[in-house]
């Protein structure tokens, strides 16, 4: 898998690159700002770009803007945004702008380099990735009349994994159950929450996230 890494802080960029290389990922280029990133993507034709959300000049959402530009220009290139913000708004924005082949992970996930590698793989496979911390914040959100109260423990777990962007097969593997069981859970959940079930996985993620935020 060929990856481009963009981060304006050399220290962290090098750390990420070393960890990725250590895990057997081919880092084909590095960039320190959004413009450099777009340039490298054009040159190197990577599978995924790993992008820091904060980059010059404003140090706010350059990563999100760059992600959109990459996805628009190179639909075959996925984007994984690394962020220090536990902000569902940012994750939702990323998904709403480009629902496919994108991911939003917190920076400290890089400690578990396996998680990052898995996320990169899933993105290359066309899936969506949302950080579990963000999903758990949304699932754990206080509600007056909690619609999630009607869900069983297992169903909640499955709902969270759906929100993280996992496919039924991935969920089945994670929970050590059959894919059929996961499908059954999914149908239950969508009926209980009165959500329209969609075969499109990205729409499924977006629908669940939006529901959790409402």
């Amino acid at each position, binding site marked *: 898998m060929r990856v481009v890494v963009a981060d304006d*802080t050399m220290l962290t960029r090098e750390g990420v690159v070393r960890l990725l290389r250590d895990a057997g990922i081919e880092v084909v280029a590095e960039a320190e700002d959004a413009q450099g990133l777009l340039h490298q993507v054009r040159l190197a034709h990577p599978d995924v770009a790993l992008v820091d959300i904060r980059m010059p000049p404003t140090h706010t959402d350059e990563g999100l803007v760059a992600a959109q530009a990459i996805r628009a220009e190179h639909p075959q290139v996925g984007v994984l945004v690394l962020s220090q913000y536990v902000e569902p708004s940012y994750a939702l924005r990323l998904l709403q702008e480009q629902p496919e082949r994108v991911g939003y992970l917190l920076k400290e996930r890089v*400690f578990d380099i396996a998680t990052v590698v898995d996320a990169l793989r899933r993105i290359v496979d066309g899936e969506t990735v949302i950080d579990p911390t963000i999903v758990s914040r949304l699932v754990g959100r206080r509600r007056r009349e909690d619609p999630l109260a009607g869900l069983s423990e297992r169903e909640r777990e499955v709902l969270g994994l759906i929100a993280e962007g996992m496919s039924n097969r991935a969920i089945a593997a994670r929970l050590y159950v059959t894919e059929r069981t996961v499908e059954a859970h999914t149908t239950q959940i969508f009926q209980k929450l009165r959500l329209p079930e969609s075969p499109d996985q990205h729409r499924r993620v977006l629908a669940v996230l939006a529901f959790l935020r409402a």
Partner: protein
Amino acid sequence: MTADLIRRGNLARLAAGPVALAVGLGALAIAQGPGRSTTYAGRSNLIATLTVAAGLALVGAGLVTAFDRRTTRIGDLAVLAGLVWFASVWVGWDNGPSLMRSLAMLAAGFTFPLLLHLALAYPSGRLRGAVPRALVSVVYLEAAIATLGRALFRDPFFDPNCWANCTDNLFLVRSLPRLARGIEVADRWFTAAAAAALVMVLGWRLLRDSWPARRALLPVALPAILLAVTVIAHTIALQRTPLEDPSDPAFGAIFLIECVGVLLLAAGLVWAAVRTRVQRRAVARIATSLGQAPPPGSLQAALANAVGDPELQVTYWLRDAEHYVDAIGRPVAEPVAEAGRAVTTLLRDGRRIAVVSHTAALPELERELGAAVRLALENERLQAEALAQLDQLRASRVRIVETGDSERRRLERDLHDGAQQRLLALSYDLRLAHTQAASDGDAPTGSLLTDAIGQAKAALGELRDLAHGIYPAILAEAGLAPALASLADAAPLPVLIHDAAERRYPAVVETCAYLLVAEGLDDAAQRDASHATVTVVQDSGQLVVTVKDDGTDRTAAMVQLADRVGALDGGLAVEPTRLRAELPCG
């Protein structure tokens, strides 16, 4: 008053009345007797009455005008012009005393110079500007030379065009009929030219001046222009018919219009005097009309109303701040005098309190303002000073809040870009070391490093929360609505947000609204509320933010919030289970 009257000038003015009456009645007698064919007044009783009335009116108006100390010069000029006006009748006293006729002949030459002087010096009595000064000097000089030449060399007997007085000149030294004729013609054309110049100067003034100044000038300027036109017409008529003849309709009409002009001039002077008197009373009464606690600016309005100058402006001098402000404390430029506008500095106990910019037609406002008005001015100045200080205070409060906010923002960035990045880099190294230890089979180091990674993770989490608490980046980047949604995501109690304000607002307003909601939710959770409702609505220039909950009654006063809202000039209502802030948002 008595002391004033004893002064010579006033004695002379006192005598002017009876003298004018005598001279006027004499003129009437001459017109109806010996001067029937040698004066215009002798043409008919009506014209005789008009002639005498015009002269007497001018003298009377002059006396009324001179009574006001600020316009004595104008009054004196009018009295003199009125007296000299009768000279043209006295010249025609057929078979009268030679000295009288000779003197009257000389005096008659000064009627026009006096009227011109009066018109140009009105209303202050002083000649302002080089052109009017030069014009008046030259006209007097020419009149003096022409009169001298007439006295010394004109023998009426040898004047083929003589009509009013063909016999008497007591001052004749040598009869030079041709020189005398030349002097007459030159004098006539010079006077016509001066009259044209007068029309131009007055016309230019009327065009240039602001409305209040123009209104003050018109009652004198218009009759003066009319009189100047008759002078020009008379010169032209004489050019056509060298022998002046009162029975000629053209000459008769010109004289009639001249009488009307003088009457109008007298009426204008009286009207102006009365108006000034009324204005002075009004100015003096301003203080009583203001009432107990006049709102800022009422003094300017009252003063403008009293002097009939809607453009009048009162500005106050702030000694400490060393600049001028208007009545509500806003800084304004120093008022300066310009065309048609004058500036009066008002003092109280020797200190500058206010500067009034007003029409130049109101020459000495300073003297008109009584002690009561000065006190009112001082009061309004103090009020303006207080308002100016309040404005400054307000601006400084906003600045303090804004500085604090931008400091928080900077701190948040520093944490993210500095400490957090270093901690991340450190953690990555730990991770690498851990992998190394694992591949080396060094279990104790591996578990130590796992602990260290755990600690670093916890530190990162805390750092992130700290940075978010100092300043939520999403607020600056995405605005109030996403930031509030994020607040609700992590709130310790269910929060319902009704947010109708989708647009961006000034950073200081967004931060204030955000902090209000954040503190309101924390407070609600502490008072065991089961849920809270946040409403954000924009209502004509105000962002109204409400946080309502169902907890127990509030005990905290929310002082810091109130300070912050107050700094934005907004209002915060702290109720037992509701916070409501109105934030001006432009």
